[in-house]
Structures are given as structure tokens and as C-alpha cells.
């Protein structure tokens, strides 16, 4: 089954709540009304009884004769829903005042009356409700009579029934009104989502430029829209980088491959002495080594992106690895009359080959960019929150606009300059990758005086 729309769901649940609420209010109203009507009925009976008592006191003589029964009846007759019966007590007599309109239930006249008014509710055969007030009235001659004053309550009943009916009949309409109101409000409130939908349907990997406009959006949705826009920005950057990267990759591979092809074709174009074939093959191998290095560097980067958790780490003494790398470069440094030195010490957790590789790449760059007769210094510092290894060399300043991009794949500071012999353009990207695998960072800074400092920051080892 298709899930209900949000507007419909909200509309339905609001109507249910409305229904429950209306029901509660209705029953409370009904209860209050009937209580109030009872009270009014009792009060009016009480008042009438008082009047009757008063006129009985004046009118009745010792013979239990009523001088002016009309006066009594006048009190009652003004209200056609009232009915009066008076019985003698000692000796018991029949009703003094004959009003045949209602027949009291047989038990009522027998209920002993007191001087305090008592009330009895009853229903006759025609299902009409009555309230009867019963009181013992002492006459002047010390005799007593029982006064029964009955009130026909069919009007009250009709009123109650009518109010109940009205409420019940209006209920469905009310519910419909509340429900559709809720639906409409929700629907209107959610209408900005259509914007989201429109934008989302426009986005593909080819075109990530669409953004959700945050104008006139309610606060909650505007936050969401901003987050989504940020996400799209990041995705866009990622996709741009990726496509730039594959462009670069094919470019980087194209030149050695075209060299190879050309060399082989030229060599084969005519007969040559075998020495020349040999030279050509040797050249091919050099070119191929470059291709092979680019491919293995790429593979390394691709793996580094995915194998974050599967590499076992050991304790590594950074100074030992630094010295090992320096050893490898001692001859190159000697030829350029550079002075290489390592100072400081620090222990980290890591993969030895990767750490060597990161240090190697930095030192290799430093030596390449150092002028003759200068120093390349490897400084290891164990600080409170990190262990860092810095490779510091002097040379030309790296312009500030290049600094944030140096660790990108195939990034060149000088576009016109071709790759240094054998370089793949991936060295610093590999450094960054290695550092992120180790939970650390790689940073670079360069001063106008030409001191360039590449540093590897490792997290400290908990021991």
C-alpha cells in the first residue's frame, strides 16, 4: 500500500483529536446543563411550596376545609406544568384539590412527609418525567396536611435532547472542517518541499550546480536547504576533482606512451646497427619505468583511500626512519653540496614503509628545490598533543596561492615546467594520503625569505 501523504496524515490525526475534544466538551456541557436544569426545577418547586404553605396557613380552618381553593389553584395554574395535591394526615383523607391531569404513582402519597421539603423524581406510563416536592405542612389548628407539588419536566428533557442532537448532528461537519483545515495548513506549510523536489530532480553527476533557493523558507527548512546546498558543494568539488584528475592522468600517461610509440616506430623505420636497437630499447625501459611508477602511485593512492583500517601499525622511531632516508640521499646531497641533518626524536604508531615513503618524498622535494651549499633540516618534535616531523629547506618562496593546492594530485606550481625527470606529480598527494591513513595531517608553509617547511603531524601515542 502506498504510504499516506504527510498532509493527509496530519489532517486525519488532527480530526481525530478534534473529535475527541468535541466529544469531551459535549458530554461536559450536557452534564452541566442537566445539573443546572435540575437545580432550577428544585428551586422553583421550593418557592411554590413556600407560597402554598403560606396560603394554607391562612386559608385552612380546623375543619380542614379550604375556604378559597381557587387561591391555591391560582398559584399553581399560572404554570401549566405544575400539579398540586394535598392530603389530610390525621385522619388520612383524599386529595383536597382535585386536579385530574396527572395520576401520581401510587407510592408517592404514602411516603411519609416531613416539615423539610423532599424531592422525588419519577416517570409516568407516557414516559414523561416529573419531579415531585413533598412537604408536611402544619395548619393553624395543629393539624397537618401533606402537600405534593409535581413539576412536569418534559420541557427540560426536550431542551437536553435538542442540545445533544444539535451537537451530534454538527459533529461530522465540524470534523470535516477541522480535518480539511489541518490538511490545508499542512499542505501549505510543506509546499516549499516542492522546491527541494524540483532542485533534486535537476541534479546529475554532469550538472551539480543547482542549489535550493533559501528565500522565504521557514527556519527549519531553510536549515535543511543550507545543509543540502553544502553537501552539493562538496559533491561538486569532489566530482570536479575526480574529472580533473582523470584528465590529468590521461595527460600524464599520454606523453610517455607517445614517446614510446614514436621511439619504437622511428627505430623500426629502417635497418640499423644492433647498438642502436639496444639504445632504443634502453630508452623505452626508462619511459616505461615512468609509466609504471605513475600506475603504482595511482594504485597506492586508490588503495590508501579504501584500506584505512586494515593496515597493522607498529611503534616507529621517527628519528631512525629519518636517518635511513637521509642515508639514501647522502650521495645526492653531496653532489649538490647540501648539508642534511636530523634533530629531535619521537615515537609514533604507523606503517614503516609508508612513513619512509612520506619522509622520502618530502626530502626528495627539498633537495631538488634547495640551492647548492644550503641546509636541509629534518626536525622532529614531540609536543603535548602531536608528534611532528618537519622538513625545512631554503630556496625560492612558494607563492601563497599555490600552498593550499600543493598536496593535490598532479598539481604544478609552474604550469609551463614539465615533470622533473622521473617525477610522477603524485608525491605530495601520496604524503597527504599516508598522513590521513595515520590520523595525522600534512602542512606546508613558506616565508618570503624562501624558507619552506613541510611538516607531518602525527597523533601522539597513548601508552
Amino acid at each position, binding site marked *: 500500500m502506498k504510504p499516506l501523504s504527510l498532509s493527509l496524515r496530519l489532517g486525519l490525526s488532527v480530526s481525530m483529536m478534534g473529535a475527541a475534544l468535541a466529544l469531551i466538551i459535549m458530554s461536559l456541557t450536557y452534564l452541566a446543563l442537566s445539573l443546572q436544569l435540575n437545580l432550577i426545577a428544585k428551586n422553583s418547586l421550593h418557592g411554590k411550596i413556600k407560597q402554598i404553605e403560606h396560603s394554607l396557613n391562612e386559608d385552612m380552618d380546623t375543619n380542614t376545609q379550604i375556604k378559597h381553593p381557587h387561591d391555591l389553584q391560582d398559584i399553581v395554574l399560572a404554570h401549566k406544568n405544575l400539579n398540586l395535591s394535598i392530603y389530610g394526615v390525621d385522619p388520612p383523607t383524599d386529595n383536597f384539590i382535585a386536579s385530574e391531569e396527572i395520576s401520581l404513582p401510587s407510592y408517592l402519597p404514602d411516603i411519609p412527609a416531613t416539615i423539610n421539603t423532599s424531592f422525588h423524581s419519577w416517570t409516568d406510563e407516557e414516559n414523561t418525567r416529573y419531579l415531585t416536592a413533598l412537604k408536611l405542612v402544619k395548619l393553624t389548628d395543629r393539624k397537618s396536611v401533606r402537600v405534593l407539588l409535581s413539576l412536569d419536566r418534559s420541557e427540560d428533557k426536550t431542551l437536553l435532547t435538542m442540545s445533544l442532537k444539535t451537537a451530534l448532528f454538527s459533529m461530522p461537519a465540524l470534523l470535516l472542517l477541522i480535518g480539511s483545515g489541518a490538511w490545508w495548513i499542512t499542505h501549505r506549510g510543506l509546499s516549499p518541499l516542492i522546491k527541494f523536489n524540483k532542485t533534486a530532480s535537476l541534479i546529475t553527476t554532469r550538472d551539480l550546480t543547482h542549489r535550493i533557493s533559501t528565500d522565504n523558507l521557514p527556519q527549519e527548512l531553510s536549515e535543511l536547504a543550507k545543509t543540502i546546498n553544502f553537501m552539493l558543494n562538496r559533491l561538486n568539488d569532489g566530482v570536479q576533482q575526480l574529472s580533473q584528475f582523470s584528465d590529468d592522468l590521461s595527460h600524464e600517461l599520454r606523453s610517455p606512451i607517445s614517446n614510446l610509440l614514436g621511439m619504437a616506430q622511428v627505430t623500426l623505420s629502417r635497418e640499423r646497427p644492433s647498438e642502436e636497437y639496444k639504445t632504443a630499447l634502453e630508452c623505452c625501459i626508462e619511459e616505461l619505468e615512468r609509466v*609504471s*611508477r605513475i600506475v*603504482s602511485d595511482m594504485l597506492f593512492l586508490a*588503495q590508501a583511500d579504501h584500506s584505512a583500517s586494515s*593496515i597493522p601499525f607498529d611503534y616507529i622511531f621517527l628519528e631512525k626512519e629519518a636517518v635511513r632516508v637521509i642515508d639514501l640521499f647522502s650521495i*645526492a646531497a653531496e653532489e649538490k653540496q647540501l648539508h642534511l641533518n636530523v634533530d629531535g626524536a619521537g615515537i609514533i604508531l604507523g606503517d614503516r614503509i609508508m612513513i619512509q615513503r612520506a619522509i622520502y618524498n618530502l626530502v626528495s622535494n627539498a633537495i631538488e628545490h634547495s640551492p647548492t651549499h644550503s641546509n636541509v633540516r629534518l626536525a622532529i618534535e614531540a609536543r603535548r598533543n602531536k608528534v611532528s616531523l618537519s622538513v625545512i629547506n631554503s630556496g625560492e618562496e612558494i607563492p601563497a596561492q599555490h600552498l593550499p593546492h600543493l598536496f593535490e594530485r598532479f598539481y604544478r606550481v609552474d604550469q609551463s615546467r614539465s615533470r622533473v625527470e622521473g617525477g610522477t606529480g603524485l608525491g605530495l598527494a601520496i604524503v597527504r594520503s599516508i598522513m590521513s591513513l595515520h590520523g595525522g595531517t600534512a602542512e606546508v608553509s613558506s616565508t618570503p625569505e624562501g624558507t619552506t617547511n613541510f611538516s607531518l603531524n602525527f597523533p601522539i601515542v597513548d601508552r
Partner: protein
Amino acid sequence: MRILVIEDEPKAADYLQKGLSENGYIVDKSLNGIDGLHLVSQHNYDLVILDVNLPGLDGWDVLKLIRDRSNTRVIMLTARGRLSDKVKGLDLGADDFLVKPFEFPELLARIRTLLRRRENIAIASILKVADLEIDSVGHRAFRGSKRIDLTSKEFSLLHLLMQHTKEVLSRTQIISLVWDMNFDCNTNVVEVSIRRLRAKVDEPFERKLIHTIRGVGYVLEDRE
């Protein structure tokens, strides 16, 4: 020593057969796993070189089936260098695992190591090639009766070349064994070190022992 190459790319299979034959091995080749298995069951090979990516029956299946019936040593070749592949190969019983592109001398070196494992040759402390002699315990080198002064790296390099006399060692192998750098680094340290070693070991003398195989590596041998 008899080697079987199971590799579906004809060019790769050809150059492997050629290269290995020229290095003194008897080499058979097969372009698919089924033929390869058939050959394994018919001959007693000392070593099988097995490509992972084969049509039909792939390298993993072939490896399992070979392991079911023999203890022949197996070197797996793959174009995919994922760690999980390597672990899988070694788990299934491969003896070694090489990622393409690899250097031919490295393959040769691994084959030699694998085949040598059985023989357990004791490594002598004194090595001698022609009139060049080194004493690895005393860290001394002599050419005839003349003592040669070497730095410690130069000595390590010479020691390595003499241990593997007549074997071509690639630059990567030398860097890994002498400088303990185990990744493919692009440095000229080997070229320069060899040049310096030559200046001390070869140049003053008539018989040249250290030879460059351009594009491949270096070898120390007496060619006379």
C-alpha cells in the same frame, strides 16, 4: 629446473618463456587454466607461474586444484595490487605474489629464492669472485693482495653483489636490500654508489667485475 607459465596474454607468456629459458630454466607455457592443470598433472614442475586473471577457470580455482594434487611451488601474478588479493593468494597456498608491472629481475630473484629454500645453502663469511675477496665478518675487501677501503654502504652493496654473483639485481632490489627502503623510489643513489664502488674495485684493475645491464640492473661476475 622445470617451470610452467600459465598466462592468457600471449605476449606476456612469450616474454616470460623467453626470459626464463635464457636464464637456464626449462619452460612450458599454457594460455588457459585447463591446459595448465593438464600439464601440471603430466609433468613434475619445480615451479608454476600463475596469472590470476584467466578466462574460464580463473587463477584462484587453478591454484586450489593444483594444491589438491601437488606441492609444486606457485608464484601468482596479478594486475590488481589489493592487499586482500595478496592475503587470499597466500591463504590458498601460493608461495609468492607479484603485482604487475614487475621488473623481470625481481621475478628471477623470487624464483631463485623459492627454489633455493629447499637447498638451505649456508652463507659463507668469505666470498670470492675471481681475485676479489671479501670477509663479511671482518668487513674487509681485497683485490688480489691489495686492501680496498670501502664505506659501510659501499661494503654492503659489494657484499650483496657478490652474494648474488652472476644474477642481475635491479635497482629496486638493491635499494631494498642495502638501504632498507621497501618501495619503488626514484633515486639515482644506486647509480652513483655503483659508480663509486667501481672506481675503487674495478678501475684500478684490468679485470672488470661489475657490469651494468642498462635498463635492467647490475651484475657482478667474472666474464673472462
